[in-house]
Structure formats: structure tokens, C-alpha cells
């Protein structure tokens, strides 16, 4: 005889459908990305702007209260952190000053050498992330 599977029925649901907190941790959403942010810690000034702007919780803070690396399980690759990073912004302005016609954005990691060297956050393709930055 088969035992009836232990399935929650409509009668078992909490009022308003509320559930315990933190369930998004079990639901990895990083594979939605088409671009990948890469943190260049040597250029970072630890302003935490990126952490404040990340619409997810994908930028970790270390025990010392410093900017940690990305949590790629949850980063959606939206690029907001790169857009808001003041270091990256400064580099873009520098490039534009030197070459007024340069059409450069924080997505240009692979096309602009200066940006690649000095920016604190680069946005790169999934392929480059894997091959050049060892991010899976």
C-alpha cells in the first residue's frame, strides 16, 4: 500500500501566505547575468557606494566592515555598482578629458586599456569573466 505523500494543502498555508525570512538564499539567481562585475580591489577607495546601491545583496562586507568580493550566486549583473562607483566615474572623466571624442562607459572594460587598469569595477562578458578573471 502506498502512503499518501506528505503534501501541504491549502489549509496548511499561513495567513497572507507569509513564510519564514531569508528564503531567497535557497534560490540562486546569479545565472540570470549577461554581464559580470569584476572588482579590482587595488583601485578601490572603500567608499561603499556600490554596496549601498546594489539592488540585491550581492556585495559582501567583510568582518572588518570593508568592501568584500561579489557573491556571484546572487549578482544579476545589472551594472549599477559599476555605474555608481566614484573611482570608475573618475577614470571615465579622465579618459574623456584626454580624448574628448572617446565614447566610454563603465561597460568598456575590454575595449579601453586605461579604464581596465584604473577602474575599481569592470563589467565584462561571461566568456571573459571565465577565461580572463577566473569567475565561474
Amino acid at each position, binding site marked *: 500500500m502506498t502512503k499518501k505523500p506528505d503534501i501541504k494543502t491549502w489549509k496548511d498555508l499561513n495567513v497572507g*501566505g507569509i513564510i519564514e525570512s531569508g528564503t531567497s538564499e535557497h534560490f540562486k539567481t546569479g545565472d540570470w547575468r549577461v554581464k559580470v562585475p569584476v572588482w579590482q580591489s587595488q583601485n578601490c577607495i572603500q567608499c561603499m557606494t556600490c554596496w549601498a546601491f546594489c539592488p540585491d545583496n550581492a556585495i559582501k562586507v567583510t568582518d572588518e566592515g570593508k568592501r568584500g568580493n561579489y557573491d556571484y550566486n546572487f549578482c544579476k549583473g545589472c551594472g549599477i555598482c559599476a555605474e555608481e562607483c566614484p573611482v570608475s566615474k573618475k577614470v571615465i572623466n579622465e579618459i574623456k578629458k584626454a580624448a574628448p571624442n572617446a565614447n566610454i562607459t563603465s561597460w568598456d572594460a575590454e575595449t579601453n586599456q586605461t579604464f581596465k587598469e584604473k577602474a575599481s569595477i569592470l563589467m565584462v562578458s561571461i566568456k571573459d569573466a571565465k577565461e580572463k578573471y577566473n569567475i565561474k
Partner: protein
Amino acid sequence: MEKTIVARTGNEAMAEAMRQINPDVCAAYPITPATEIMQIFSSFVNDGLVKTNLITVESEHSAISACMGSAASGARTMTATSSQGLALMHEILYIASALRLPIVLAEVNRALSGPINIHCDHSDTMGERDAGWIQIYAENSQEAYDLLINAVRIAEHRDVSLPIMVSTDGFIISHEMERLEMYPDSEIQKFIGEYKPNYNLLNIDNPITVGSLVLTDYYLEHKRVQHEAMKNAMKVIPEIFAEFKKVFGRQYDFVENYKCDDADYILICLGSTAGTSKVAVEELRQEGIKAGLLKIRVFRPFPAEEIVKYISKAKAIAILDRSESLSTQAGPVATEVKAALYDAGKIIPMQSYVYGLGGREIYVDQIKDVYRKLKNTKISEQVKYLGVKE
């Protein structure tokens, strides 16, 4: 109990009820076509007569969203709106009911555009009849005041936990001054009691997720729960009404039976038209026509059995809908009454009308004519437009 007799418009009556309820939070965006309910209430806030946190937002969509956040955080929450404002809330109304947040909304029935119109009809609330909110239609200022007070108890009842809208007819009630019996603030507070929320989003000792994603596996079950909550409201509403009668002396029910018991011809309507129809019933009875009126007060949940109980002995019925469903069939009230009769195994000749859209006046003579036609002419299966220029 000491009652104060005052002269108040429907808007003022609802604002006074809100003052006495003294909710923790009101979020509103009272631009036209909203009425002055919120404007009056904001002066109560300004004068320190309530402790309500009044949040002014940038749209009705935001108003109901803020109300939801507030209610989910355990605050007793109210708002007010009308017409396009309610329509703009549409998306969020469904979420509020699914999250079982007992928000109380003071609604004034005004037409939806287009054409642009701010006068009375029921198209705004009828457009939200499937949003999972309890809906109560008041005939006059006294009902609006009383029912808003009852609404708090109904919405917050543990077995119900659903948002609720109490509506009055735009201009006809909202802007007309009427005699209003008000009860002492302390009695209202005693009646509504303390709000004990089902859950509290801000309780950091017990963190929860509100509004999680539910896909094909459990969405159906969640709706089944809401269905049950509405069924519970069928049981709870008469209990609260009975308690209200005990304290304040006024009797309410799902419907109002006005001389239906021996009536041959019964008219069914909602809201202020019931007042006009009562005069018609009286005059017709003097002519020897046994007329009766059934006013539907609670439209959601739909009191099908109650309605059938009062009309099943009639020779013919007329149903007046103050909104159009544009299905080429009758309006929502007639359609649902028909379904109720079908379930009860009864076939009664029924003439459905659409009337009063965009604030078009309805007169005693027109209603008398409706009764006379029930008696004297063949009933048409087609819905008729009452008072249309043709």
C-alpha cells in the same frame, strides 16, 4: 447611550467615523475625483484630534501601497478614494487581499471615465468586485458612518482578515447634508477595540517574508484560502452587526428587506436609490400594488441565499444596476441575482435595467413606472436602459 444629533454630509460622516476610529496610519492621494473625506480628515490630524500618521503620497497606486506596508507592519490603516483613484489602485487591491491585510477604505461611488465624469454611479467599485475585498454599499450618511465603524471589526476579525471598502453614492450622499446620529468617541473605541495584527513585518525578533513568489505549485491553494476567508465573512458579518445593534441600537444585515414579505413585485438595487424606491413602494401600495424593495447592502461576499429568501415568492422582479458590464447582458447585480436564483432552482420573471450612469437622476415616478411595467407588460430578456434619451 448618549447620541449626538448633527447635520453632516456623507463625506463629513465618513470623516467623523475615521476620526472616532482614530487609525494608526492613513495614506492618501486625494486628487479629483476623490471627495473631501481626506481633506476633512487631514484637518482633524492637523488639529490634533487624532493620533493618525497621515502619509501624503504621489498617487493612488502609492497610497494603497503605503497602506499595505503600514498594515503589514501591524498598524490599523485606512484610506479613502473614488472613481479613477480606485481604478489606479486596482493592481494593489488584489495584493492587499491576498496578504490578508484588513485595510478599511472609505469609498465614494463616482463614474469611471470616459467620457470624463465625476458624478455618481457604481462603475468604480463594481470594477473591483473580484479583487477579494469585502464591499458594503451605504444608502445614506448614517449607514456610511455606522458601516465604516462595523467595517473595522469585520476586516480585523481573525477568521476574515480581509480588506474592506464601504461606499456611498457620489454627490447624492457624499455632498448632501443629512441628519446624523453620532455616538461618543469612547464607545466607538470600546467597540472596535485594539487591533491585533496577524503578523508584523517589522518584528525583528521574528523575521518573515511577506509577498513571496508562488508559482504553479501553490497559487491555486492561496486563492482557495481567500475563498474560505470570504466564506468566513458570511458568518462573521452578522455577528458583528448583532454586536453593533446591542451597543448602538441600529440593526444592519446583508440586505434590507423593505416590504418584500407579501410583495408581488420586488425591485432590487444598491445605495441611495433604495431611499427613492421606498417612496415609490409606499405610493404604489396606496394604489393597491403590492410592491417591495430589496436593498443589497453587502455585495462581497455575495449574500445569495439571503436574497433568494426574500424574493422567491415574487411574481416578477426588477433589478437596477448602476454600472454597465458591457457584455450585452445585464449588469453585475442582475447577473449575480440570476445565478443565485438558478442555484436555488427558481425561475422568476426578471427585468434588468441599467440606470443612473454618470450621475443621471432617478425619480420616484420612474421607479413606479418600473414596477407598473413588471405588472403590465411582457418582460424582456434584454437589459433596458432606464431614462435614456431615445
